[in-house]
């Protein structure tokens, strides 16, 4: 399962590097928060899959909504003069590590 996700990630990276898309400088910050949220969602999804509590709707909605919300928060924070993106970074970062930790334990248990 996790090999499949890694392969898909690699394919995505490959496609992304081939695509002639690049973000404007002002957007980089918000997009990076979005990427962090997306990573978190993916890890959460994998973890849920491994825990057999996976829900497709929750996973997909979480993925998109979290990414957009994180980017939106960062943007709002900038407009308010508040470093709101830090909150997103901390929350998603902590969750990312938790999820990764859980996955690691599952994998260790498995093999």
């Amino acid at each position, binding site marked *: 399962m996790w090999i499949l996700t890694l392969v898909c990630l690699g394919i995505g990276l490959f496609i992304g590097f081939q695509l002639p898309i690049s973000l404007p400088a002002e957007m980089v910050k918000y997009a*990076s928060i979005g990427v962090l949220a*997306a*990573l978190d969602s993916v890890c959460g999804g994998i973890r849920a899959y491994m825990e057999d509590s996976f829900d497709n709707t929750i996973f*997909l909605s979480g993925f998109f909504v979290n990414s957009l919300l994180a980017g939106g928060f960062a943007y709002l924070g900038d407009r308010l003069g508040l470093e709101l993106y830090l909150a997103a970074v901390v929350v998603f970062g902590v969750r990312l590590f938790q999820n990764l930790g859980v996955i690691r334990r599952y994998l260790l248990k498995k093999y």
Partner: protein
Amino acid sequence: MRNSSGKISIMIVCIIVGIMLSVQFKTSEKYGPSLRTSRMEELALKNSTLLQEKEALSKEVVSLREKMTHIASDSALNADLQEELKKSNIAAGFISVEGPGIIVTLNDSPRAIQPGDDPNSLLVHDEDILFIVNEMKASGAEAICVNDERITAMSEIRCAGTTILVNWNKIAPPFVIKAIGDPQMLESGLLIRGGKLEELKLYGLQTQVERKDKLEIPAFTGALKFQYTSPIQSKKKADS
């Protein structure tokens, strides 16, 4: 069933995340690999402010250049004005001048007064000086002074009791009249036969005419005030 659909969605999401990550990598690399995003924001802001500043400065350069050309033309104007001012000052007697000319010295007659003599005939009068000054002017003198009192357009040479006033200053004999101009011309104008100097000599007054290659004439030192006079506007002058 759930598992397979979940797998598919995870795969799709993974691909999307991969694309996002790679785009992010590319963008970050494009704007400098070591730049942090917050720093980039700051730098973008700085960049835009610097661009604005640059624009403002280039505008300033243009305006300064314009001003410089104005100043250049102004300084030419200024030089002209200075030249005019110098001429006017010389004409008005506001600055000391030097040049070739003659010195005329007049003094009272050394003869002792005899009974029955008119004492006036032994003295140098204001009229004599006035006459000589006038003669000098007629001979092309450019600057004249009497006992270091510069003769200006409004200078008076007038008898006041026992003394003579020039520029409201008392002067006493010997009267030294200096004039700048063509020495030859000035001298011959004064020594003309039947002229004033001859007449004065006839009276027995001491006269002396001396040519000089170089003599100095001081500036008018009096105060200048125009109580009643004001210039007519140049436009009116042009009309009239």
